[in-house]
């Protein structure tokens, strides 16, 4: 069928609309299925509606509503059976799912064959792989109705779905019935399966449920965004799948599932942060950065000893000539060193950046000794690795946690940033009453104060000052603030 023809026919339009609806609904609902580790249950439910379809067909005279009702009832019975076995019989959870759905599916297949042999117009293939191009108007209305219902349910009951998916036990203690939400989700899932049956078929519904959702999970860290992204990918996959069907004259369901898988593969490789390519590039970049930073740091060290030269650098770093030349060129391009004839010098900017590395190294050493109780002798190698990993943010946090130490465990000075508060706590005289100012160096300093029991806008009185501590009084409580920390705390009188 030509594309032109397809979209000119009511059948084609119906197919397109149904595919968009199914893609959207399955994408959104699938997020909860994936996050609840219920992918197999989704697959099971999709297969197990088959006997319900036959009952609806035989008893209800092939009406859309009869088939719908039969399928949903079969879906719920399956969900209940699976749960019952999991709770009452000593069978493994996934085995219980497999046993129930294969049994239901088999009964359905046998029954359809029998009914079909007796002359009824019931095509097994349409249920298994869909028949999106054979949709009637009433099929389409049903699909639209179900989609609206499912999406509305997700929006209205979002917080119940979120809570029971994230922490079912906590949800239970909050008075949310986890069981009710579970069965409601199973009901929605049965609805989605029935609505998708015509578009993709029962065997591939699970692909529309879990593939877009898994793709979305690689792209975001927030459930709300995940729902939107997954729904969007579901729509794209079904529309593109339908176009592929038209071009290559193939079956719609599998074309949609394959398209969804392609989106998934794209995300696996190219997702920012969670993608494999990102991870690979990040590793490579890190390796190169470590070489670069090591070169910079050793340049500073040799500069401080007035013995900065190519050969000395080469010996200290253990790089081959080309690697060292490459890194020195990079340093020069970034204005961190200057190179004349046989002369090598570090620029002020170079000193600044190298000092940052020294700061990371010494802070980490101090952290390992003070917080992890490691021996001063065993920390150097650890710090050599970590100085390249520590972000400025993390350094600020560690520094605050250690109360802004001035010396590392080997007695070497830790370079600090030159922040000076307008009025520091350590500058206050004994008996001064003051309060911690709103405006502080950073949030880590605020957290450190919080750990000590000093909230902002709490007023305190300076009681005593020693070499190491400043003692203050808040309400009736006496607190000792290390002087190194007090130097950084901004106060108002």
């Amino acid at each position, binding site marked *: 069928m030509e594309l032109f023809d397809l979209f000119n026919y009511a059948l084609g339009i119906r197919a397109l609309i149904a595919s968009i609806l199914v893609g959207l609904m399955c994408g959104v609902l699938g997020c909860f299925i994936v996050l609840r580790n219920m992918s197999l249950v989704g697959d099971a439910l999709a297969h197990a509606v088959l006997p319900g379809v036959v009952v609806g067909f035989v008893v209800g005279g092939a009406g859309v509503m009869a088939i719908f009702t039969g399928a949903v009832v079969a879906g719920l019975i399956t969900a209940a059976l699976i749960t019952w076995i999991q709770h009452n019989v000593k069978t493994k959870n996934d085995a219980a799912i497999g046993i129930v759905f294969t049994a239901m599916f088999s009964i359905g297949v046998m029954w359809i064959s029998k009914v079909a042999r007796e002359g009824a117009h019931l095509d097994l293939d349409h249920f298994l792989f869909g028949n999106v191009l054979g949709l009637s108007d009433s099929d389409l209305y049903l699909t639209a109705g179900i989609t609206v219902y499912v999406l509305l349910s997700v929006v209205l009951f979002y*917080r119940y779905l979120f809570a029971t998916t994230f922490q079912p036990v*906590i949800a239970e203690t909050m*008075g949310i019935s986890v069981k009710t939400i579970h069965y409601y989700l199973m009901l929605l899932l049965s609805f989605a399966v029935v609505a998708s049956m015509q578009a993709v078929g029962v065997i591939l519904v699970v692909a529309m449920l879990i593939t877009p959702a898994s793709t979305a999970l690689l792209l975001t*860290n927030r459930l709300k965004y995940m729902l939107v992204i997954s729904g969007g990918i579901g729509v794209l996959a079904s529309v593109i799948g339908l176009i592929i069907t038209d071009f290559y004259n193939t079956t719609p369901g599998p074309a949609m599932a394959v398209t969804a898988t392609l989106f998934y593969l794209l995300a696996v490789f190219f997702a920012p942060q969670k993608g494999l390519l990102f991870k690979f590039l990040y590793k490579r970049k890190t390796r190169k950065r470590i070489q670069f930073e090591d070169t910079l740091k050793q340049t500073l060290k040799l500069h401080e000893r007035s013995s900065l030269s190519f050969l000395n650098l080469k010996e200290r770093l253990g790089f081959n000539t080309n690697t060292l030349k490459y890194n020195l060129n990079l340093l020069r391009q970034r204005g961190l060193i200057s190179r004349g004839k046989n002369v090598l010098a570090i620029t002020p900017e170079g000193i600044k950046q190298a000092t940052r590395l020294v700061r990371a190294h010494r802070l980490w050493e101090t952290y390992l000794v003070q917080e992890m109780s490691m021996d001063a002798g065993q920390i150097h190698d650890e710090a050599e690795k970590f100085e390249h990993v520590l972000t400025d943010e993390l350094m600020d946090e560690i520094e605050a946690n250690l109360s802004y130490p001035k010396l590392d465990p080997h007695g070497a000075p830790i370079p600090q940033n030159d922040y000076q508060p307008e009025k520091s706590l350590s500058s206050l005289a004994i008996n001064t009453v003051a309060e911690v100012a709103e405006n502080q160096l950073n*949030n880590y300093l605020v*957290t450190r104060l*919080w750990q000590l029991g000093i909230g902002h806008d709490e007023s305190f009185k300076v009681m005593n000052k020693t070499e190491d501590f400043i003692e203050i009084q808040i309400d009736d409580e006496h607190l000792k603030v290390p002087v190194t920390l007090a130097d950084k705390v901004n106060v108002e009188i």
Partner: protein
Amino acid sequence: MSAISIKGLSVSYDRKTVLTNIYMDVAPGELYGVLGPNGAGKSTLFKAILGLIPVNTGQVLINGQSIENQRKKMVYIPQKGEVDWQFPATVMDVVMMGRYPFKRILQRLNEEDENIAMQALRDMGIDHLRDRQIGELSGGQQQRVFIARALCQQADIFLMDEPFVGVDIKTEQKIIEILKQLRSEGKTILVIHHDLSKVQDYFNKVILLNQWLVAYGDTEEVFTEENINRAYRGQLNILHKTSLH
């Protein structure tokens, strides 16, 4: 009236008895350490109090009423290991959960809820982390998120299962301070705890458990070598490391 009153409670899993015939009255406005060896039934006791598991025999009353009536008066902080840290949820998402019990079905969370949540975040010193995914936090920060949520729930009874696992010592001490503060506001707090060396500093009451109730009451009276030996039976070597006199 007791905050929690337990009468003849027995619980078993798969025919294996975990708790036997517990009678206990938890006084309101006290900070309890719940102690006992592995498998003593500490977590099971919590779950029975919360009405999360079926009990064989016995009865649990909360503020003199059935658990169902008093659900919203209790808040549970589970072990860190029971949480899916990869879940796509932010700190704010999690803390806002503490407002769910105040909402009728279909009622939306509003600005007031958000303000309460923000205040709890500030109280715990993590307001700057509100938009972080929970897996990106340190152990201490993660525990603070759950305590912030508990504060939002404005409950009377706090049940905390090993809140200090994977938490740095500074944060641990700060959390204990907050618990003592809550206690002075009249809250009842039960904490499952493993480190016997700090019991005297942390808790003014203890519950010693080993499938049956060994002893409970004021820390000075109950936390004695004799009682601890009875609770820990074959695991006496643990005690040598503690600061017991």
